[in-house]
């Protein structure tokens, strides 16, 4: 128990090695993580958490690098969690987002962590929230989460972030319309990155038009902002907009509302996890004891009855 207190103190004091080791515990679902995260929770909720999502190669990492630099210039401590896909076949991954963030590596006011999705769908790693929370307690003022390069269904980022930036780029063609439409609904700020490329003007107009058709939503109308992430152009304005959104959302109660919703969702997901594990155990047990699959295959029973019976044994209605 003393050791737990010490770990918590070290994270809060900004000890990099402790924070990074505890993130590993969380990633590996090591039993130590649960104790630490429980004790840490009371020390979280201060950081502004910003999700950065968009198509593969749209410049998310480059932009995150520049956003972090600008926030450093404003004397803020920054955390970055960058997620890349894990191969479903080997369980391995190449996490390459840091390539664009080299110059931040030695800044003591920046903590960058790369994560593999490890089987999680939705554009994030399963324990992204734990990493964010650890960086929050660690004292980061802003935490940027870079999702994997996504399509329209990978929108889990809204369950974690206070604010979501969508990174768009010109020249991806019309097939990207659907993706844009899907992401459109979750974006608080639309970034048109690679504004140095042809088609940026048209893309801005397209996005504005799509926003006109977006249904009534709480909060500010998402601004469409041009950036050239490579040389940092447009990034100070983007940072200003981030702050404006936080201020506004706080004022109208939207920030609090989202955070409440997300905490509930988190409990839901944690429970779902437990439930799934339990359910698999029950099915495996039924298979071993009563040759469940065999009887199903031979049409001696049916999936509906089995689900009912097992559900009852699990005290489900």
């Amino acid at each position, binding site marked *: 128990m003393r050791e737990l207190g010490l770990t918590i103190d070290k994270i809060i004091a900004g000890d*990099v*090695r402790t924070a*990074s*080791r505890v*993130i*590993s515990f969380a*990633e*590996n679902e*090591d039993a130590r993580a649960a104790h630490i995260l429980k004790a840490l929770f009371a020390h979280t909720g201060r950081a502004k958490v910003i999700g950065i999502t968009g198509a593969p190669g749209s410049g998310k990492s480059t932009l995150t690098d520049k956003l972090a630099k600008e926030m450093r210039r404003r004397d803020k401590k920054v955390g970055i969690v960058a997620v890349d896909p*894990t*191969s479903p076949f*080997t*369980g*391995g*991954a*190449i*996490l*390459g987002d*840091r*390539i664009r963030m*080299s110059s931040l*590596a*030695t800044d003591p006011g920046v*903590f*960058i*962590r*790369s994560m*593999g999705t*490890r089987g999680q769908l939705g554009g994030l790693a399963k324990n992204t929230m734990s990493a964010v929370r650890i960086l929050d307690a660690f004292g980061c003022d802003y935490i940027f989460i870079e999702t994997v390069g996504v399509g329209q269904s990978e929108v889990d980022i809204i369950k974690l972030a206070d604010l979501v930036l969508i990174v768009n780029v010109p020249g991806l063609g019309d097939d990207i319309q659907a993706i844009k439409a899907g992401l459109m609904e979750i974006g608080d700020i639309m970034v048109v990155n690679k504004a140095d490329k042809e088609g940026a003007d048209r893309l801005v107009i397209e996005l504005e038009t799509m926003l006109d058709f977006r249904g009534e939503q709480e909060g500010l109308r998402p601004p469409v902002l041009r950036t050239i992430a490579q040389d940092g152009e447009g990034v100070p304005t983007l940072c200003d907009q981030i702050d404006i959104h936080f201020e506004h959302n706080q004022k109208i109660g939207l920030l609090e509302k989202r955070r409440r919703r997300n905490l509930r969702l988190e409990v839901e997901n944690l429970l779902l996890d437990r439930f799934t594990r339990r359910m698999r155990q029950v099915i495996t047990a039924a298979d071993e004891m009563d040759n469940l699959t065999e009887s199903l295959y031979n049409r001696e029973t049916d999936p509906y009855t089995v689900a009912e019976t097992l559900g009852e044994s699990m005290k489900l209605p």
Partner: protein
Amino acid sequence: MSDRTIRVLIAKPGLDGHDRGAKVIARALRDAGMEVIYTGLRQTPEQIVAAAVQEDVDVLGMSILSGAHNTLFPKVTALLKEQGVDDVLVFGGGVIPDEDIPFLKGHGIEAIFTPGTSTEDVIAYIQNNLKR
């Protein structure tokens, strides 16, 4: 040793601009089920060590072709030591003459893989020599 995912930082210190070898290793380790953090070309020892600490890697592999291994590799291990990091397995690769190997091993570079080493050997080496 549990069955947790092994995390490896593959880094390119020094000024040479070729990372084909590093990428081959990175891919092989990924295919062996490891998480490989790749940080790109021309990393300073300070950047490499900061990344290794933030990413909490089990293994640090560095590749160098420019001939600066005798200064850069020991610089990295010295910085690791300075930070109190003693559970990261460090190996080196690239064009490294045989006569330099004892010196490097004396400075905490625990294995040197010269061109021609099979990726299977590197994978096996990592799996058998993890420090935690």
